[in-house]
Each structure stands twice: as C-alpha cells, then as structure tokens.
C-alpha cells in the first residue's frame, strides 16, 4: 500500500536527542482498520518519567495510537499494525512478546471507570494475583494497601475494603482503577480520557495523582481538554487525520505552536 510508505514530517521535537531518556520509541507506525488507514507513519519518542499528552480532534487517531502501545488493538480483528513500537529496547509487536506480560508492563486506565464487580480489595488484588506477584496474603495486603495509598484513595476506603468497588463515586472509582493499574507495578500507564466523566474536584485529584505518579511511571494520556493537557503534561503531541502533526514541550505547544493546524486546533479556530 503506497500510502503507508509516505513519510510524515512532524513539527517540533518528536524524537528526543537523549536516547537514554526514551521509554517508548515508535517508528513509522501505521495502523489500519481494514482499509481505513487510521495512523500514518508516526515517529515519536516518549520520555521516561514524564507525562506525554495526546491531543487532537475526534477520530484523529490519538486513542488508536495509545492503544497500539500495549496492543489493545489486537482485540480488534480487522486491525493491523506496521512499524515498530519499542518499549525500552524490545519491539512490543515482536513475535516473542507475551501480550499478557506486556500489559502488566504497560497498564491502562479508561475513560469510564470500570471497576470489576468485586470488592474494593479484590479489584486491586486481582492483577498481582493473576500475575503471581505475591506469595503470601500479607504480601498481597501490602501491595493492595500500597497501591490504594499511591492512588490517593486509601484514607477514603480503608474501612470498607470488602464493599463493592462499584459503590464508590465516579472519581473514587477512577482512582480505584488507577490503583488496580499500578498494583502490578507497571512501567508505563496509558490513560484514555481518564477525567472526562468526572467533576472538576475529582479531576483535580486525578491530575494531582498523575503528577505524583510520574516519579515512578511513564504516563501517556489522551485528553480532549487542552487545559488538562497543559496542566498535567510535560510534552504534548497533536494528531490530525492519523498524522502526528506536532510534538514539543507542552509549554511550547500552548504558547507558540509551530504548525498552523496545531495553532488552529488549540485556539479553537479549526476550519
């Protein structure tokens, strides 16, 4: 398919000069849904221990690209990915990769909080248990409490760990999902519009959490809120029609974007 071969020039600094700081390196990534070319030749470095935000209009491919990092797109039959996405040095699309292991390294938080219909405790304990991370009950307790603590939820739920996770408020449920994601000690957390269903206070708590988590994790977040991208991320990538148009430091993108399309989108002048 010749379309896949066309190389895209991305404005800004999509590739980092310091290779040692790169956690995820995507090279010439193309994603197809059947005949639809959803992601076109994306080259992008994602920096370790930073928050990278993906922005762009609906259907621009930002979520598709996010989901290709931990191969969530594998679940879609007609979806095909070409190019490489290297996590540290290994290509996640390599034949030898165990997808379950990959998703333990690259966790995900979704738009709508989706706790399991189980107790708060079991929601967090599920991952460590299936991955066999804890040998004893004490160890598991420690991981669950630690994860709830890091997700800023422990104080609110410590007296009702046996109650269903679905009984929490939306914001609490989302933090429970974050606790669940970090319980297996991933290296990367992907977040697909994690605050779009939350009120401003719950959003602020998640944003504060994201800022704390980046000390230990590399975070990639898809958001429709430009203000959120500006608040939480260090780097921002702007997608349009499947192409990575621009990626630079967040400050640069929101004060002085290079590409006209970026400028048009973030100021609300999209033609």
């Amino acid at each position: 398919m010749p379309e896949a071969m066309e190389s895209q020039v991305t404005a800004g600094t999509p590739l980092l000069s310091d290779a040692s700081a790169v956690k995820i390196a995507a090279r010439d990534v193309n994603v197809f849904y059947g005949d639809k070319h959803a992601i076109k030749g994306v080259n992008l470095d994602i920096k370790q221990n930073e928050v990278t935000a993906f922005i762009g209009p609906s259907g621009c491919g930002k979520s598709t690209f996010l989901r290709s990092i931990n191969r969530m797109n594998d679940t879609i039959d007609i979806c095909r990915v070409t190019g490489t996405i290297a996590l540290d040095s290994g290509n996640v699309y390599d034949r030898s990769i165990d997808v379950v292991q990959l998703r333990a390294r690259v966790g995900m938080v979704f738009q709508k909080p989706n706790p399991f219909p189980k107790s708060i405790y079991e929601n967090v304990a599920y991952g460590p248990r299936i991955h066999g991370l804890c040998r004893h009950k004490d160890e598991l307790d420690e991981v669950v409490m630690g994860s709830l603590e890091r997700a800023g939820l422990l104080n609110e739920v410590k007296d009702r760990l046996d109650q269903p996770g679905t009984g929490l408020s939306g914001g609490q449920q989302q933090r429970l999902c974050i606790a669940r994601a970090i319980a297996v000690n991933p290296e990367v957390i992907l977040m697909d519009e994690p605050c779009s269903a939350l009120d401003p206070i719950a959003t602020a708590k998640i944003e504060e959490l994201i800022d704390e988590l980046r000390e230990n994790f590399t975070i990639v977040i898809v958001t429709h809120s430009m203000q959120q991208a500006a608040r939480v991320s260090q780097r921002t990538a702007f997608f349009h029609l499947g192409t990575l148009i621009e990626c630079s430091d967040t400050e640069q993108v929101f004060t002085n974007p290079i590409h006209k399309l970026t400028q048009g989108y973030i100021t609300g002048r999209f033609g």
Partner: protein
Amino acid sequence: MTTLQGRDTAHTVRSYEEELNHLANVVMRMGGQAEAQLASAVQAVLRRDSELATRVVVADARIDEMEQEVHAFTVRLLALRQPMADDLRAIVGALKISADLERIGDYAANVAKRALVLNQLPPVPAVSGLPSMARMVQEIINDILDAYIEKDVEKALQVWRRDEEVDDLHTSLFREVITYMMEDPRNITACTHLMFMAKNIERIGDHATNIAETIHFLVTGKALPLRRPKGKAETDLNPPVVD
C-alpha cells in the same frame, strides 16, 4: 475570512472572536488618543497656547480609563476563555501595550503641564529644536500602531531601530539648550523645563520600542534577542566646553 487580528480563520466561537477584536480596538483607540495628546502638547508649546495645554492635561484621564478597560477586559478573557497560543499572546500583548500607551499619555500630559509654565516665561529660541524631535516621535507612534494592527513585525523592527535617531536628536537638543543657559542665566528656568520636555518625548520613543518588542513577541512567539541600537554614548550629554 480575514479577521481584525490578520488571521485566515475566525474563531469557532464568534463571541470570542468579537472579544479579541474588541480588545485590539480599545488598544488602537488608546494609541490614537496618546498620539493626539502628544501632537496637541507639542502644539501647545509652539503656539504658547495655554488653553490647549490645559485640555491635554485634563484629557489624560481618558487614556487612564482606557487602560483600566483593557486591564479588566484582559483579566476577563483570561478567566473565561483560557486562551492559548497566538490568542494568549495577543491578550498578554494588549495588556503590555496598554501599559506603554498609558505612560506615553502621561509624558504627553507632562509636556503640556510644562507648557503652561513655559508660557508664563519669556520665549526662548531653543523651543525651535523641539518640533523636529516631536515630529519624529509622532511618526514612530503612528508606525508602531500600524505595525500592531497589521501584525507587521518588519515595521515594528523599523520603529525599534529608529529610536536611535530620537536619542541622537535628544542629545543634540540637550547640548543646544545648555548653550542657551550658559549664554544667559535668565534662560535657565525656561530651558530647564524645555530639557524635561525633550526628555519626556525621548521617553515616549522608548515606550514605542517596548511596544515594538511586544509586537515581535505576539506575532512570532519569541522575544527579541538583540540589543537595541543605542544613541551616542552618555558622555555626549556633557555640556559643550566653553573657552
């Protein structure tokens, strides 16, 4: 559609577009007023017209009001629209430019106040040096306002460079005035006022260069990296040696 800010595409939210245009309009009106104030102040000196000078002093309050309007409107836009990119720079730029224009207005009013005093004293010949300097500064203000509304960085840079000429004219006027003072000590009071007027006009030129720098920032997103060319060295301000 090309908007007042010289953009190809208008904002999706029309009221936001209108607000941005309104802000640029207030700044332009403020600039026009400041320009007119300087012209009147200089006329008041040349024609020894105390009535005109008084009008200039009173009218300065109008520029101050417009500055307040720009401030309030800017805060409102920042809070309600959360502007980004060139919109953000346009709004911050308007805030900065309005502060410079307000100072320009103050300097013009100061010239008018001194004109009131000068008109009580016998005329001094040195007054003749003032108009050419004032004319140059008026041109500079006119050009810088054009550069602002046209988002013309090149024009702004021309103004930025021309300030050197104003500085040079100021220096030569300074030397001229000192000579008159040396010739006849009875000229000292009038000449001192004249010297301050020249200084005020020279400062107006400096504010015009500030505006040029702001225009450069709001159009390109980058601060001007260069140092502005300076007039002749400060030592030239030494009085001429008389044998």
